[in-house]
């Protein structure tokens, strides 16, 4: 049968190409470069610490805070409700485990700015458009939420609400971080992700 020969040659040639390729990873950016760039430079991709503070006191479950710092830093000062994924781990593992739920907005933060911004571009580039950053990171959180005091002589209703939010979020933050270490670890561990089990096979 003549078709066998042509077919064999075709398969061999194609698999030869595959053998030469570095098929090491299964992840590549799928977004278009210009669109990704304008998306991530847009203000909509960032939340301010005040917005995040409000999510926390409302215990909004459509929001997931992701802390990209090292586990030691996270243990010292964690924002309530955050989970810890150290940045080097975040870029090397399959982000589906963490970002797979499309109904949740993922907000990255790091110590300052840089890592959370990498993570934002990385996640959006892979197609997780539900990714955002908390601008300024923990530094900004401490400066604004924890340390800003009311100054001046008159206060408007809006300012009052803002300060009230900050006060309550600050209290939650202090409360969590003043827990004894073992209790705090228990609380933080309880929010660990586990890989979603894939469906398939004949079971």
């Amino acid at each position, binding site marked *: *049968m003549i*078709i066998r020969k042509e*077919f064999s040659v075709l398969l061999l040639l194609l698999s030869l190409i595959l053998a030469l390729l570095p098929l090491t990873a299964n992840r590549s950016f799928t977004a278009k470069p210009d669109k990704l760039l304008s998306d991530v430079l847009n203000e909509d991709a960032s939340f301010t610490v005040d917005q995040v503070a409000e999510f926390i006191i409302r215990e909004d479950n459509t929001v997931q805070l992701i802390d990209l710092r090292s586990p030691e830093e996270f243990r010292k000062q964690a924002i309530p409700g955050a989970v810890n994924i150290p940045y080097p781990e975040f870029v090397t593992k399959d982000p589906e485990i963490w970002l797979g739920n499309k109904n949740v907005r993922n907000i990255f933060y790091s110590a300052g700015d840089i890592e959370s911004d990498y993570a934002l571009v990385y996640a959006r580039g892979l197609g997780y458009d539900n990714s955002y950053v908390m601008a300024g990171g923990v530094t900004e959180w401490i400066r604004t939420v924890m340390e800003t005091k009311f100054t001046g002589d008159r206060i408007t209703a809006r300012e009052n609400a803002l300060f009230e939010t900050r006060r309550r979020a600050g209290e939650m933050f202090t409360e969590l971080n003043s827990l004894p270490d073992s209790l705090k670890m228990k609380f933080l561990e309880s929010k660990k992700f586990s890989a979603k089990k*894939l*469906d*398939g*096979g*004949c*079971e």
Partner: protein
Amino acid sequence: MKRSYMNPYLAGILLGIVLLTAMVVSGRGLGASGGYKYCVVSIVGAVDPPHVENSEYYSKYFENGKKPLTNWLTLEIFGVVAGGFISGAVSGRLKLKVEKSPKISVTRRLIFAFLGGVLFVYGGQLARGCTSGAALSGMAVLSLAGFVTMIAIFGSAYVFAWIFRKNWI
């Protein structure tokens, strides 16, 4: 009108494209023996509900209000029946008959077919996939389990083939 079968390589390419489609659309391979089980589980669930509730194995197919009949594999095997029928109709092969070697009786063929079905699905459930679910789909994703199952099926079938040669040639 009766048409002959497709060239095996072309048929293989067609089957490969179907498998690739399943991977791209649903992120999984094809399967068949699982579909048998889901049908059986739902029948048992309808006939004898207390038995299902008390059995650890059955109950996991009903927890959280799941229905085994609306399962990916069940729907897929319904599709297989429909697809086979369409193909048979297109190629003029629809015909009620028992296919067997002229040397054996119809009863013997049917008994062996029934026993074969029992063993195949039993083994398929044990190995968590049959020729399609484990061997074919497993090979396509380079799964070690798929290769081992495939070698076990075909290897042992060649050995047993000698014992049962009278049934076929």
